[in-house]
């Protein structure tokens, strides 16, 4: 199969459709805390003109071999818990998506000014932004694949279960340097910090799971389903 060109998306903030409850739930704000609705509305308005929310992916031939994935010519040792979710895939969508550096810079500035809750809320907002942006890209991908009679899996990333974070290096090898203005440090920290990367499996008989928290050992994950704590 011929390798397809890397697809790139630039996503306006308004398309992310972020609500206060998206942030409050993850931040564990609690009912007795003051409302930060006006603060978040204003911050989102300010970000609208400057934030560089973007992402993209490359589609590669792929297969599962036990606890490994073979994507193009690159082998990922994901561990069985993750490779199990990719079974029956014959293509892999390698993705990167970022909320940009603006949100993290603003969060840091507020924290340094002593606006601790506001700084924290923007940090959470950055996480919400990047996940929502990736949801948009994943939805578009799902529609594209459906037109070809194909299905997609959930997205999984190095760091999940036994999949070593070090394999970010292999994952980034599918993209040109500074793709979406994202860089990877020696310790595999992505910069901007509010960035996600990973692999989505594609095939005629792959499965999408509504909840996968039970299979993941990341008990500190912000998005972990409460029932799986």
């Amino acid at each position, binding site marked *: 199969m011929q390798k397809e060109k890397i697809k790139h998306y630039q996503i306006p903030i308004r398309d992310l459709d972020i609500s206060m409850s998206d942030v409050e739930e993850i*931040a*564990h704000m609690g009912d007795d805390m*003051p409302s930060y609705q006006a603060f978040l509305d204003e911050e989102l308005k300010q970000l609208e003109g400057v934030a560089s929310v973007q992402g993209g992916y490359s589609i590669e031939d792929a297969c599962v071999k036990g606890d490994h994935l073979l994507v193009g010519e690159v082998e990922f040792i994901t561990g069985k818990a993750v490779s199990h979710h990719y079974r029956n895939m014959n293509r892999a969508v390698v993705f990167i998506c970022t909320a940009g550096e603006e949100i993290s810079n603003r969060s840091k500035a507020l924290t340094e000014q002593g606006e601790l809750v506001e700084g*924290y809320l923007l940090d959470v907002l950055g996480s919400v932004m990047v996940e929502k942006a990736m949801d948009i890209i994943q939805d578009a991908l799902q529609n594209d694949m459906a037109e070809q009679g194909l299905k997609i899996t959930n997205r999984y990333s190095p760091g999940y279960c036994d999949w070593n974070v070090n394999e970010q290096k292999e994952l980034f090898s599918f993209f040109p340097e500074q793709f979406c203005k994202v860089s990877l440090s020696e*310790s*595999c*920290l992505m910069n901007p910090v509010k960035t996600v990367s990973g692999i989505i499996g594609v095939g005629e008989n792959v499965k999408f799971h509504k909840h996968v928290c039970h299979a993941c050992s990341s008990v500190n994950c912000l998005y972990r389903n409460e029932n799986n704590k």
Partner: protein
Amino acid sequence: MNELLEKLAYCVEFGKINKVSPFPPNMKDQDGADEIAKQLLDGGVPATDILMKGLMPGMEKVGVKFRENKVFVPQVLMSAKSMSAALDHLRPYFQSGEAERKGIFIIGTVEGDLHDIGKNLVAMMVEGNGYEVIDLGTDVKAEQFIETAEKNPGSVIGLSALLTTTMGNMEKIVATIKEKNADLKVCIGGAPVNQDFCEKIGADSYNPDPQGVVEFLNALAS
């Protein structure tokens, strides 16, 4: 004055910063930590007593509730802000030496890692429990920890890491610190580390929550 100290502890515990602060709703229009700390000082209560009998009991309760998942990060931050408002009145007394703190804690996120929310929470909680905190920030090398510790004899070092890939850097930093001065106490924390890792790398203490760090420091100070 004891009643006022108890009220200060309550303000810290529930995050009442000052009179105009709307949080918590049941304390609307009441004095907060800012006003009460000033009233205590004006009433002749020593800064050390305000710290030990007002701020520390409040912050300790927050630490325990956070450990027990009874409060979450936003509530802890409100408490920290309330504590900071009171501490602003006390700082001149610490700087002049008129009042003393329990010790010095040097904290930083290890080299290669830029995550700081967990580290900041520990720093706030430790400060509120009577220690001077020197926060070296993120991406901190062993030499910076050693240099700061040498300038502050008797200090304790805290290392934070969020990435599994920076656990190796944590190990190197602990080894470098211990090689330079085996008596320097080092505690570690962060999502990927645990007690086994702590023992493996020769650190002195692992704590899964900020209150654990406070308890470790208190045990060293006693």
